[in-house]
């Protein structure tokens, strides 16, 4: 086991997969030798693998993804980086209409083994165009896989699986996660998509959380533990495919559910998870489902404003206490 940051874990996955498979290559803005990636994830990789395989692109999100699609359907395994999650909007046709649908539309003739990595999340005061959480957009597009790793261990294992898999993946990272540290095995490992992880066991309430919210949920759980409330924190790790079994088994055990996701509440990720549980396990609910999410606003700039809209431990604790 080795301690490394989330960012290092991602880099390690990229390096290992590029070493293992010559068809894997990276493209994106400022990911090459001059910058090493806006969040330094690809730092050093251009030096190691060359500028052809770690390729700086023009500022052309639509073409970045489009070129990645064209390469993916002709035998390569591209990993494209969109610098900020908010900018996926510029590439939505290539992501949702092309990458997600080519296999289906062409009757199974094509496979699109493409990974798009991008950071979502608020908390560093860079305002409305650089702070959104848009995972729900992709959960809603059939044909796409969506990963939301919350720890270095999960990030590395899932990124390797994403690259080796044959489906287009939206690999959703979080800005605040890059520096956090965690234990990562020295030896080779991958994590399959569609398998949730129980980050903390508990008996009184199930708290499903994603990305950075997993850490807030764990902190909240610690405080709740001191007050005699035992929370079970479930991290889905991938939104598509979603590990419904683990979530429902947990709800059957505790009878109570709080879903914590950073995206805006309406039609967000938490809405889908709540609906699944209500549809398939309502007989086991002993109280209404609670969702903790951002309010329906863009992310504001000034610190007190931004802090107000991001869900925090207090909000999670409050939600839990409303139903236990």
């Amino acid at each position, binding site marked *: 086991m080795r301690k490394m940051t989330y960012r290092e874990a991602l880099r390690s996955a990229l390096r290992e997969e590029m070493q293992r498979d010559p068809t894997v290559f990276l493209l994106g803005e400022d990911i090459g030798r001059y910058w090493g990636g806006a969040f330094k994830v690809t730092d050093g990789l251009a030096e190691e693998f060359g500028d052809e395989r770690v390729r700086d692109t023009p500022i052309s999100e639509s073409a970045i993804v489009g*070129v990645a699609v*064209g390469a993916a359907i002709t035998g390569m395994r591209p990993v494209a980086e969109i610098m900020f999650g908010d900018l996926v909007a510029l590439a939505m046709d290539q992501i949702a209409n092309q990458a997600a649908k080519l296999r289906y539309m062409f009757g199974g003739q094509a496979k699109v083994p493409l990974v798009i990595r991008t950071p979502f999340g608020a908390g560093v005061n860079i305002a409305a165009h650089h702070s959104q959480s848009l995972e729900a957009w992709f959960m809603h597009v059939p044909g796409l896989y969506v990963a939301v790793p919350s720890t270095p261990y999960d990030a590395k294992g899932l990124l390797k699986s994403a690259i080796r898999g044959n489906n287009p993946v939206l690999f959703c990272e979080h800005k605040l996660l890059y520096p956090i540290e965690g234990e990562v095995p020295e030896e080779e490992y991958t994590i399959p998509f569609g398998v949730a992880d129980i980050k903390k066991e508990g008996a009184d309430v199930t708290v499903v959380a994603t990305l950075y919210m997993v850490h807030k949920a764990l902190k909240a759980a610690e405080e709740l533990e001191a007050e005699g409330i035992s929370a079970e924190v479930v991290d889905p790790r991938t939104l598509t495919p979603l590990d419904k079994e683990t979530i429902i088994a947990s709800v059957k055990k505790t009878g109570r559910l709080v879903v914590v996701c950073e995206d805006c509440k309406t039609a967000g990720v938490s809405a889908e998870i709540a609906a699944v549980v209500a549809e398939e396990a309502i007989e086991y609910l002993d109280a209404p489902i609670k969702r903790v999410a951002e309010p329906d606003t863009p992310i504001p700039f000034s610190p007190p404003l931004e802090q107000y809209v991001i869900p925090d431990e207090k909000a999670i604790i409050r939600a839990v206490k409303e139903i236990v």
Partner: protein
Amino acid sequence: MLNLTKEKLIEMYRKMLEIRLFEEKVFELYAQNLVPGTIHLYTGQEAVAVGVCSALRKDDYITSTHRGHGHCIAKGAELKRVMAEILGRRTGYCTGKGGSMHIADFSIGVLGATAVVGAGIPIAAGAGLSIKLRKTDQVAACFFGDGASNQGTFHEGINMAAVWKLPVIFVCENNLYAMGTRQSLVMAIENIADRASAYGIPGVAVDGNDVLAVYEATVKAVERARKGEGPTLIECKTYRHRGHSRVDPARYRPKEEVEAWLAKDPIKRFRERLLQTASLTEAELRQIEVEASAKVEEAVKFAIESPHPAPEEALEDVYA
């Protein structure tokens, strides 16, 4: 003539005819309610697809559009399976999942038709990047229309291909109308080929109804690409004989204009040229016409007799 073998000329003529007869047949079948949805016929533009694809190898790639039956047939797609797909049958190239606007045959390098205008441009560039990284000498040809040249992807895709010197041939089929909108209403320039210089690549405008002219320009562009010198933009001036889609009577086009272009029918012109230059005899031409007609009939029979996919198949092939 142009150092082309007789076989090559026969092949070109045959392919143009097959496309023409195929499209006319689809037009008829639509009136018999056998074609679900709508169709965008290639009638009149045969010289572009055939001119370009005749300069390509089987392992070269093309990307196509909603008006793409011609591209796929020219690249070597089986008429039967194209027709079956258009009729929504299980035996179609896409097992009925795609339809007229999404024909694909990966075994002959047809990377599929997209219905989002301009979306194929970066995808073709991506195929070019793939070729470059794999270090083969393949090339990718990208078909798109005058309308697509205003889409952001045109700019982004060609720019990327240019700066990375990707082996792509960008073929703009300028038929003067994007759906119902005349070119002069939506851009301030006349020759889309002139945009090439903005990206630092060669751009050439050719008579899109002269199959040999298209062929010649493509051969040059392919050579350039295979040598690693980068992409070329070829603008083919051509015209659709029919409306944008099946139900469009195209009243936005002046009668004189239509008639003038019909007189420049690419198949008629090529036929005359072949006779004039004694490359082929009347009898040989008739023979090709008969064979092409029979092939189209066979395709129709095959398609009509094919079963529809089972409804539950709608749930398959979403993921690999």
